[in-house]
C-alpha cells in the first residue's frame, strides 16, 4: 500500500477536475446539434479501472449516477475483450442505458496492457428514430416505438471504426449528419480524457491507483461524517406526477429515507406501478436522481465520486414506475427523475433545511417541433427545453431563470432557433405571480411562445405540474401550476400537459411554466422585498394584497404617460 502524501493527493484531485473540465469544454466546442452544443444536455466523467467515478464535470448530474450500472454491464460483457483504441457505446435502458436518445460512450484507457480507467461521455442525441421526431415522446407504449436500441458494443475496435454499426445508426435516425457529428464530438472528448489520464499515469506511475482509492475513500468519509451528524430516524415525503399522457390519474412517488448512523437508506415502496406512457424510469436513473439530491445536502467540498454512493442504498419495487420491466416505454423518463428529486428533497428538507429548497419548477418542459420544410423538404427537429425556477430557501428567495439542479443545462438562443428552424419566437419572459408566496418566495417560472412557419409539423409537448403544483415548505405556499396553450385561427385553447399532435402554419404554442414553491410563512416576508417585486412586475398588486396583505401604492405617472 502506497503511503498517501497529502500534497500529491491534492494535486491529483485537482488534476482530475481539470481533465473533466477539459473534456466538457471539448464537447461544447465540437458538437453539432443545438441540444448538445447550446443546451448542453451531456455529461462527462472519468472512472477508474473498476468503473468507479473519480471526478465529473459540471454537466448533467442526472446522467452520472447511472454510470456505475452501465460500467458493470460493460465490464461483465467485455472483461477479456477490451483493448487500447476500443470505444464502447450503448443506449438500451434494459441493458445499461437510461433512455434511447442518451448514447453512452466509454473509452477504456490502457497503459501498455494495464487498464487504468475509462473516459465516459453521455450525450442526448437529437434523434434516434422511432415514431416521433426527437425520439422523446411521452405517449409511446413500448420501447420498440422509441427508436434504435444499441446493446453495449464496440463503435471502434482497436482504433478502427465499426462501419456496420455506424451504417445502422445512420440509416435509423432522422438527422444522420447531426447524430454522427455529435458521436464525433463524444469520440474526440474520450480521446482527450484518455490522453490526459495517461499523462497523470506517466507522472505518478502505479501510485496513481492508490490515490484513486484514497480519493473515493475521501468522498465516502466526508459523506459519512455528514450523515452521522443527522438525527437517526425515518423521513417520508410524497409528490405526484399529473398523469402518464393516457390516464389523468395522479402518479404518486413515495420516498422514505432512513438515517441510521452514517448510512442512508432510500426506499420508494408505495410509488406507482409502472405506467402505460413513456415516463417509466430505470432503477439506475432513480439512483442517479437520488444521489444528486442527497449530494445537495452535503458540504460543497465533497467530491462527487463513487465514495458518496457507498453511503446510500436505494431501492424501488420491481415492476414499479421506478424499476420497470421490459418492454415498458421510458423515453420521457426525465420527468420522473425530476419528481424523484423533488420527493427526496421534501424528505431531506426535514433533515438538513439550510442546504435545501422548496420545490423548483418540476423539471424542464420539452417542446419538440419536427417535420419537413421548404421546397427540398429538409427534415428539421427543434428540441427545446424550458428551464426553470428554484424554490424559496431558508434564508433567501428562489432563483428565476435557472437550470434544474439536476442538470446544469443552458437554453437555446432565440436567434439560433429563428436562424435554424422554421419557427419564430414571440416571447421569452419571466412569468409574473408564478412563484409560491412565502417569507422567501419561489422563483418565477418562464414563458416561452413559438409560432410555426412551416406548413405542417408534429408538436410533442412534455410538461407536468399542471395539477400538482410545486410544493412550498415550512408554511410557504405552492407555486402557480403550469399551462400549455395553443392558438389557431385567433382562438386560444388549453392543451393537456403531455401531448403529441399535428399543427399547421402560424399555429402559436405557448408554455407557461410553474414557478418555485415558497419557504416560510408569507406574513414574515420583508415589506421591502414585496415592494421591490411589485416595482419589478414580479408580483401583481392583486397578489401582493392576497398573499401578503400588502397594499400597492398607485403607479407613478411616468409609467403610464402616453404620447
Amino acid at each position, binding site marked *: 500500500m502506497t503511503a498517501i502524501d*497529502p*500534497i500529491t493527493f*491534492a*494535486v491529483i484531485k*485537482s488534476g482530475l*477536475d*481539470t481533465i473533466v*473540465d*477539459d473534456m466538457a*469544454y471539448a464537447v*461544447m*466546442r*465540437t*458538437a*453539432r446539434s*443545438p441540444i448538445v*452544443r447550446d443546451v448542453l444536455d451531456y455529461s462527462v466523467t472519468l472512472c477508474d479501472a473498476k468503473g468507479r467515478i473519480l471526478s465529473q*464535470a*459540471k454537466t448533467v*448530474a442526472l446522467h452520472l449516477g447511472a454510470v456505475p450500472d452501465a460500467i458493470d454491464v460493460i465490464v461483465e460483457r467485455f472483461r477479456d475483450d477490451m483493448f487500447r483504441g476500443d470505444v464502447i457505446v450503448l443506449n438500451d435502458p434494459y441493458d445499461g442505458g437510461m433512455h434511447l436518445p442518451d448514447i453512452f460512450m466509454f473509452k477504456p484507457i490502457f497503459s501498455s496492457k494495464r487498464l487504468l480507467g475509462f473516459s465516459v461521455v453521455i450525450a442526448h442525441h437529437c434523434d434516434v428514430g422511432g415514431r416521433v421526431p426527437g425520439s422523446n415522446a411521452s405517449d409511446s407504449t413500448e420501447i420498440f416505438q422509441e427508436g434504435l436500441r444499441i446493446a453495449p458494443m464496440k463503435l471502434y475496435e482497436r482504433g478502427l471504426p465499426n462501419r456496420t454499426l455506424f451504417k445502422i445508426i445512420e440509416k435509423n435516425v432522422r438527422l444522420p449528419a*447531426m447524430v454522427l*457529428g455529435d458521436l464525433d464530438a463524444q469520440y*474526440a472528448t474520450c480521446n482527450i480524457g484518455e*490522453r490526459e489520464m495517461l499523462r497523470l499515469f506517466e507522472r505518478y506511475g502505479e501510485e496513481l491507483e492508490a490515490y484513486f482509492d484514497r480519493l473515493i475513500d*475521501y468522498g465516502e*468519509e*466526508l459523506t459519512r*461524517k455528514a450523515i452521522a451528524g443527522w438525527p437517526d430516524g425515518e423521513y417520508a415525503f410524497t409528490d405526484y406526477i399529473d398523469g402518464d399522457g393516457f390516464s389523468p390519474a395522479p402518479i404518486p412517488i413515495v420516498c422514505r429515507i432512513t438515517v441510521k448512523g452514517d448510512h442512508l437508506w432510500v426506499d420508494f415502496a408505495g410509488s406507482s406501478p409502472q405506467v402505460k406512457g413513456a415516463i417509466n424510469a430505470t432503477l439506475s436513473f432513480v439512483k442517479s436522481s437520488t444521489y444528486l439530491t442527497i449530494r*445537495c445536502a*452535503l*458540504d*460543497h*467540498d465533497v467530491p462527487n465520486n463513487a465514495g458518496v454512493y457507498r453511503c446510500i442504498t436505494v431501492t424501488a419495487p420491481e415492476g414499479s414506475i421506478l424499476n420497470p420491466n421490459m418492454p415498458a416505454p421510458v423515453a420521457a423518463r426525465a420527468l420522473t427523475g425530476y419528481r424523484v428529486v423533488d420527493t427526496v428533497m421534501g424528505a431531506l428538507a426535514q433533515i438538513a433545511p*439550510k442546504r435545501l429548497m422548496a420545490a423548483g419548477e418540476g423539471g424542464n418542459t420539452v417542446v419538440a417541433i419536427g417535420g419537413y420544410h421548404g421546397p427540398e423538404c429538409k427534415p428539421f427537429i427543434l428540441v427545446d427545453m424550458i428551464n426553470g425556477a*428554484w424554490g424559496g*430557501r431558508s434564508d433567501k428567495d428562489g*432563483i428565476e*431563470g*435557472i*437550470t434544474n*439542479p439536476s442538470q*446544469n443545462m*443552458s*437554453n437555446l*438562443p*432565440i*436567434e439560433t432557433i*429563428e*436562424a435554424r428552424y422554421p419557427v419564430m*419566437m414571440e*416571447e*421569452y*419572459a*419571466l412569468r409574473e405571480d408564478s412563484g409560491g408566496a412565502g417569507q422567501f418566495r419561489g422563483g418565477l417560472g418562464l414563458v416561452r411562445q413559438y409560432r410555426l412557419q412551416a406548413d405542417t409539423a408534429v408538436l410533442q409537448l412534455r410538461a407536468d405540474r399542471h395539477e400538482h403544483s410545486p410544493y412550498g415548505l415550512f408554511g410557504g405556499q405552492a407555486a402557480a401550476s403550469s399551462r400549455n396553450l395553443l392558438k389557431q385561427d385567433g382562438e386560444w385553447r388549453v392543451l393537456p400537459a403531455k401531448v403529441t399532435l399535428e399543427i399547421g402554419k402560424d399555429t402559436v404554442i405557448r408554455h407557461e411554466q410553474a414557478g418555485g414553491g415558497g419557504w416560510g410563512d408569507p406574513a414574515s416576508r420583508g415589506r421591502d422585498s414585496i415592494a421591490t417585486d411589485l*416595482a419589478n*412586475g414580479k408580483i401583481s398588486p392583486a397578489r401582493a394584497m392576497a398573499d401578503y396583505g400588502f397594499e400597492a401604492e398607485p403607479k*407613478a405617472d*411616468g409609467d403610464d*404617460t402616453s*404620447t
Partner: protein
Amino acid sequence: MIGRWAASSRPTNSVPMMQSARLSVDIGGTFTDLVLLRNDGLTFSAKVSSTPAAPEDAVISGMAEVLAAADIPAAALTEILHGTTVGSNTLLQKLGARTGLITTKGFRDVLEIGRLRTPGMFDLTWDKPEPLVARRYRLEVAERTLADGTIQTPVVAEDVLRAGAFFRDEGIQSVAICFLNSYKNPENERSAAQIFSQAFAEIAVTASVDVLPEAGEYERTSTVAVNAYVLPPLKGYLERLEHKLRSAGVTAPLLIGNSNGGLSASTTAQSKPVFFISSGRSSGAVGAARLGAALGEPNLVAFDMGGTTASAALIHRGVLSRTHEYEFRAGMSVPSRFIKAGGYMMRVPTVDVAEVGNGAGSIAAIDAAGLLTVGPISAGADPGPVCYGLGGARPTVTDANVVLGYLPPRLAGGTLRLDVEAARMAIDKTLGSPLGLSAAAAACGIREIANANMVRAIRAVTVERGLDPRDLTLLAFGGSGPVHACDLARTLGITRVVFPPSPGVFTAMGMLAGSIEHHELRSAQARLDLLGFEVVERLRREMRAAATMALTRQGYAAETVGFSEAIDLRLEGQDASLSIPFSGAFDAASLRPAFIAAYRDTYGYTPNDAVEAVALRLHAHARISEPLDFTALKAAPNDVGAREERRMVHFTRAAAIETTIVPRASVVSALSGPVIIEGADTTIVIPPGMRVEPNATGSLIATLEAA
C-alpha cells in the same frame, strides 16, 4: 524607486537636443507603475502608491517623478499609454451608472434569464448575480427584424419616446438598446438610438450592434448592458485624467490598453468601455508576446503573480491566445473556464487570461476533512502576511516562502526586516501540529498547494487548447512570479523559464512595445465554398476604409496604417468557431485545409465535414514613433543594497541546503542552481538541477540541466 535601462551603446549622459518620449502607466491595486521611453532609447521607471479614490492623482504625481528623472518637459511626450482598472472595479464594486435597457417586445427578460447555468453544482445556496439593469428599467418597444434581416415591423417611435421619458424621470443616466436579430440588420436599432438621443441628449445611448454585431441575443444584450453601465464612470475618469494631463502641459494623445491587450484611442474607450474591462492585465500578456518575439521564443506561457491572484496567458507560434467571450464575476477564483453563468457576460475580444485566487498574500488553512488549502482568501496589504508584523496572524504563501528561505529576511530596499520566527510559529501552530508535520514541511506543503492552484491557471490556457506545456517556455513576471516559476515549470514539464529585465513593472513596459490599433468585424455567414469572392472583398474594403478613417482621425498618418485579417470558420452545424488568419486575395479553397489543420491541432481528429464561415475580422495598427524594442534593452545596475551572501533554503521537505544569494546585476555568466537572485523589485528562485544565464535582451533564462 527609479530604474533605468540603456538601450544603446551611446553614452547615457549625452542628451540630444530634441528630446521626446512615450510614457506608459499601469494602475494596480497597490502600486501605479510608470515607464518612460526616451527617444534616445533610455527607459526610466517609477512605482508610486495607487490612489483608488482618484486614480488620476497617482498618474500625475508619478509622471512628474519620472519626467524629472528623465529630464524632459511634459510637452515633449508624444504618446501616453495607459492600463486602468476603473472598468473592472466599476463592475466588481457595482459602481456603474443607473442603467436602462430597451428591447424587442416580448424579450425584456433575456438579460435576467441569461443562460441558466450555475458555476458549481449541488449548491442550492448559490446566489445568481443581480442583473445590471433591474426589470423595471427594462422596457419593450414594438419592432421586429426577422432572422434573415427582413424588417417585419419598423421601430415605433412613440414607444421609444415613452421609454425615454420614463428613464429621464427615474434618473437613468445610460441606456442600452438590443433588438432581436439586429446583427443581421441594424436598421431598427440604429433608428431607435437616433430617436432616443435626439429627444434625450443628456442620457448616454449604446446600440448593441455598435459593440457586438453578432448572433446570440443574451450575449449581445449583456455586452451592451455592461457597456452602458460602465460608460459614465470610465468616460468621467478619462475626461478628468485628460484634463489633468493637459493642465500639466501634456499635448500627446492618450491611448488606453484594451481587454485584447492592444492600445486604442481614449475616445474609443469612452464610447465602448466594454472593450476595456481587462485593461492592463491584458497588456502584460501582450508585452510577454513581444518579449518572446525578441527572444526568439514563439511558444510561451506568460505567468503573472501578484498579491491576491495569479494569471496565465498563452503565446503559441508567436500568437497570443485570445478569446471572444469573457465573464466577469466577483471573487477572482475561476477554477473552470467551462462556465456560462454567474458573471457579467461580455462577448468582446479579450486576451485569454486564466486567473486563480492565489497570490503571495493568499491564506493557508485546513478544511473540514483535514485537507490543506491555500486561497482564495488573501491577507492583502492589511494586515498582510504574518512576517510583516502588521497584525496578520494567518499564514500566507509569503510566510511559507520566508520560512523556507526563498525570500530575504527583509523587504525590498532592505529597510524593513521580516519576522521569520513569527511566520514559522504561525505555520507550526495552525498547520504543522494538526497535520503532524514540521513547520518546514508544512511550509513546503503551502508552497506546493499554491503551486498546484497556479498550475490550474496555466493548464487552462494550454491543455484546454490541446497544447502540451512541455513544448512551451514559461515567462515569469509580477512581484512574485519569479519566486514560484521554476517549480511550476517543473510540475508541468516545462524546461525553460524566462525572467524579463524588470518583472515588477513589466506590464507598463510591455505597453511601450505596442502601438495603437483598431478592430473591425463583419458577419459573413455562408458555407465556405459558397462564400462569394466579391462579397468578401467588398467587406474587406469596407473594413479597411473604416479602420483607416478611425486612425487618421486620431492624428496617425494613413501611410503608417497596417492591417491583418482573419476569418472565423467552423464545421457546419457547430456553434464555436476558430479564427484563421489570411492575407492576399480571398481564396476559399486554401482556407479549408488551414482550418482543418487548426481543428486537428485543437481536438485531436481530422473531420471530413463541410466548413462554414461566420465572420471576417480586421485588425489595423499605426504608429507615431518607434515602439520600445525588447531586443535592444540592456539592464543597467540598479540593485539596492544587495550583496552576495549565503543562507539555508528548503528546496524539498527533506532538508535545507546552503544556497548562494546574488544581486541580479552581478549575474553576467551562467550559474547553476541552487541560487537565489535578488533584484530591486523581485526575487528569482533557481532550484537545484536548473541553470540560469543572462541574455542579450537583459532577461535571465533558466533551463533544466540534463540529468
